[in-house]
């Protein structure tokens, strides 16, 4: 079973956290910090597995992670999962994000947390893998987006009109969005294939 899926950047800022077992909010934050501490001090060429931190079950659980550009993707799993299988799963997740966001980067995860959650929900449910086929996942996400658009077409029109007007008055907004707080460059993930 997958106990938790965490994404954080090179500085330990969480970008996604999804726990499939219940922990208190404080413990969740501590787990994220502890996991970052364990994972970030590892060299680049070492293996992708390590024993979990004490908070998330110690040696009964494994942390399986991949490091892409500015982001760490960490899956905490118990012994019933295949380590290499989980590595593949992380890859499928990232490739799916890359297709959905077109060259995904850290900012996409920041500004579209809800979308990332939705994409993840198409893959993993209650700690178990629901689907591993990328095309199937993307089909589902597309279908959702279509529904969203059709709804936005009727109900979202006024709101979008307002926001369009506001946007005209505040031309500096988009620039603000792109300025990072901690001077992260926004490199794209290595393109696949």
């Amino acid at each position: 079973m997958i106990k938790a899926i965490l994404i954080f950047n090179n500085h330990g800022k969480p970008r996604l956290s999804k726990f499939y077992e219940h922990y208190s909010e404080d413990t969740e934050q501590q787990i994220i910090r502890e996991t970052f501490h364990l994972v970030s001090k590892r060299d680049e060429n070492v293996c992708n597995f390590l024993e979990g931190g004490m908070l998330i079950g110690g040696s009964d659980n494994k942390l399986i992670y991949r490091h892409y550009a500015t982001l760490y993707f960490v899956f905490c799993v118990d012994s019933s999962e295949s380590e290499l299988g989980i590595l593949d799963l992380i890859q499928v997740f990232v490739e799916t994000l890359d297709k959905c966001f077109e060259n995904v980067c850290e900012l996409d995860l920041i500004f579209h947390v809800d979308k990332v959650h939705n994409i993840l929900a198409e893959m993993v449910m209650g700690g178990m893998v629901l689907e591993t086929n990328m095309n199937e996942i993307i089909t589902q996400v597309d279908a959702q987006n279509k529904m969203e658009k059709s709804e936005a077409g009727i109900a979202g029109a006024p709101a979008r009109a307002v926001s369009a007007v506001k946007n005209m008055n505040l031309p500096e907004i988009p620039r603000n969005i792109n300025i990072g707080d901690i001077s992260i460059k926004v490199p794209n993930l290595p393109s696949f294939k």
Partner: protein
Amino acid sequence: MPAVSKGDGMRGLAVFISDIRNCKSKEAEIKRINKELANIRSKFKGDKALDGYSKKKYVCKLLFIFLLGHDIDFGHMEAVNLLSSNKYTEKQIGYLFISVLVNSNSELIRLINNAIKNDLASRNPTFMCLALHCIANVGSREMAEAFAGEIPRILVAGDTMDSVKQSAALCLLRLYKTSPDLVLMGEWTSRVVHLLNDQHMGVVTAAISLITCLSQKNPDEFKTCVSLAVSRLSRIVSSASTDLQDYTYYFVPAPWLSCKLLRLLQCYPPPEDGAVKGRLVECLETILNKAQEPPKSKKVQHSNAKNAILFEAISLIIHYDSEPNLLVRACNQLGQFLQHRETNLRYLALESMCTLASSEFSHEAVKTHIETVINALKTERDVSVRQRAADLLYAMCDRSNAKQIVAEMLSYLENADYSIREEMVLKVAILAEKYAVDYSWYVDTILNLIRIAGDYVSEEVWYRVIQIVINRDDVQGYAAKTVFEALQAPACHENMVKVGGYILGEFGNLIAGDPRSSPLIQFNLLHSKFHLCSVPTRALLLSAYIKFINLFPETKPTIQEVLRSDSQIRNSDVELQQRAVEYLKLSSIASTDVLATVLEEMPPFPERESSILAKLKKKKGPGAVSVSELEDGKREGGELNGGGERGSDPSAIAASNASTPSPSADLLGLRSAAPIGSAAPSAGSLLVDVFSEAGPAAPSSGANDDNFLSSAPSSSSLGSEDPAPPLPESDELLNKFVCKNNGVLFENQLLQIGIKSEYRQNLGRMYLFYGNKTSVQFTKPVEPLVEGGAQVQQVINIECLTDFSEAPLLNIKFRYGGALQNITLKLPVTINKFFQPTEMASQDFFQRWKQLSLPQQEAQKIFKANNAMDTEVLKAKLLGLGSALLENVDPNPENFVCAGVIQTKAQQVGCLLRLEPNAQAQMYRLTLRSSKDSVSKRLCELLAEQF
């Protein structure tokens, strides 16, 4: 086209996030967040009804704030309101908020459940999936109560969409995990198994997780999944890489599903059906062959996926542990990976080899890789990998390579990572003890351990070396000499001082003849460390000093002076001061004789088993103790005490494994041991020898003294003590269990033995619970030791080969405070335990009764009632017997009639029983008829004692 168009986001949310990201300090961030929280709160509380879009926006903001690690204590109600929206976007964000933020004991669950119920009934697949996700994410008991009945229906309904089926399968799994009692098996179970055949691979992917979990808990109900899984696996493995289209991942067909199928098969023993097994072996061979083929792609993902399957296949081969050919191939494959340039593969190969090392078939093959593993321990850059290498060295260690492995582990310890040092120290200590042939090597090793990693040497380790030195007089002189030398080092660890103080205090006299280690030199050496030590060590040293006074009267003035000095006699520590005062007085007033008696050499320690092992297990946590370690624990006692060869009979291993029930291994042990059955002519003297213990002075004659199931009594008579004859009351104890399966078998002032047993057809399993009623450790019944007040469990598997009349014997030996206890009992296994009840009508019964009319087929007894003749009690007893109690068969309603079949491996014996109570005379007449005379006779004997 990207699936998420970036321009469509919510502007207010984007602005808020940018603001946060622009904050220069943590304080500014908190300020901005608090401002936003206040804003949202006022919006939620305001009079103006919010439209769906705004609600969604604010809920998104709350989610973002939560991700940053801030508590969110409001907004739940708004999120729940969003659930009942019929717009997908709003519903979806509501569900997202709830699955991230609502915990399982929230009061809102009832409202949420209501929304879920509506969505499940909506027949809109998207809404249904959202609802199922929410159940799976929250998974509370209330949700299980509300939906555990509904979800299996959705899962197996013919018209359910594939995507909904997938979600339903995992949702059900989640509920089963949180509230197994609420998920009732029903007619859906067989249909769930058939989901393995589903056309849609996604459905199979989701269903297999569910089936695996259910099979682990109810293996019998789900047995059919084995053949289905094998055929599915075989179709995947033999397919070309293009056959499965989207489920082909970097040229590997359905790697995830293959792994999961192989995992599912690991829940079961090898298939019994020859055709299924053949097909599976073929699959496993194909997977092993594919590993040797050139890769279809250079991408790491390709080899990754391929190897994921390969490692699972190897796990399955190790799990079956029955195909020597495949095991050797698996071992060779892992051997290749040990030198692979991918770190991940080296890591996994080391890990898999650890389990392989405990298989009898491959232990030797694993040992051939010792150099590679040692090299890995020395040169790997990654601590995770080094740790696995250390684990594997520990697992592959045996008498032949112990010295090499211990030496390598010691040298690794010098620069080992801090995180694994303590575990390494324990492992070295265990190996050194377990495989010590000469004890000087053992002493050297432990002292080296203290020298190299003294901080990590726990008390258990140094206690243990002292126990062993005290109990073995051949090593005492050497130990004294070695600690004396070790103490000469200018800086030595405090643990070394403790060991040194203790050993010189006891055995310093053995080296005092050498002028270089004269008594005074010994004392001065110890005392030079005194001031650098902590209070407990100083206290220990003071005791060593008083022992010196006894050993070497010439040191008395020097030592008395030390004791008399202000720093001792007025020490601020009470314990030290008291010792100094008392020892000083003792040394000045007691006569030499009294002194010699008080300060006599320590008697041998009664405890013979290592407490270090227990420590290692504790450290690794309850779940992490591998079977091999438990097994090791049992080997240990035998080897240290007797120094005998380990039995190479694999059945002995299977049997010693008994405290961890594993159905595949234990039956193996039984067949060779055959505890029951007249197949062995001397059935009466069959012996279940739980742990025959070689006493401290046991000759190292090679007694097989950790072989707890020995079929021939002679094998245990090789040991130093013969099993005691059965206790006189053991027949009575046996009779207590004829009509019941659980209870207390035996009890005296020291020990209580409880029994739980279950029988099915000709097989049985018995759990023995040994409870220590004292507060002192018992050494060597089932586990290496039983702590005071504690209980250990042992499992015995039983197969009835043919009918029998003598119960198997259970011999228990253990040490309590140095005295050997030897108890032999009859195991309450009687022939009636293998009854299968048979229901039949009156007519059938009498027809059969007449068929069994030969005089030898009948056994009859007339006897006096020992207890009150209560109908209900009699009924209960007859039911406990195991046969069917037939109503309305006998024309006389006072009489009892039973029918059943005794199942043995050799044959089935039909039995009919009639019990006629005579209340006036307080007598019974019992008549037994069966197709085998010995069975009638034995049953009659057993039953006559029951009423």
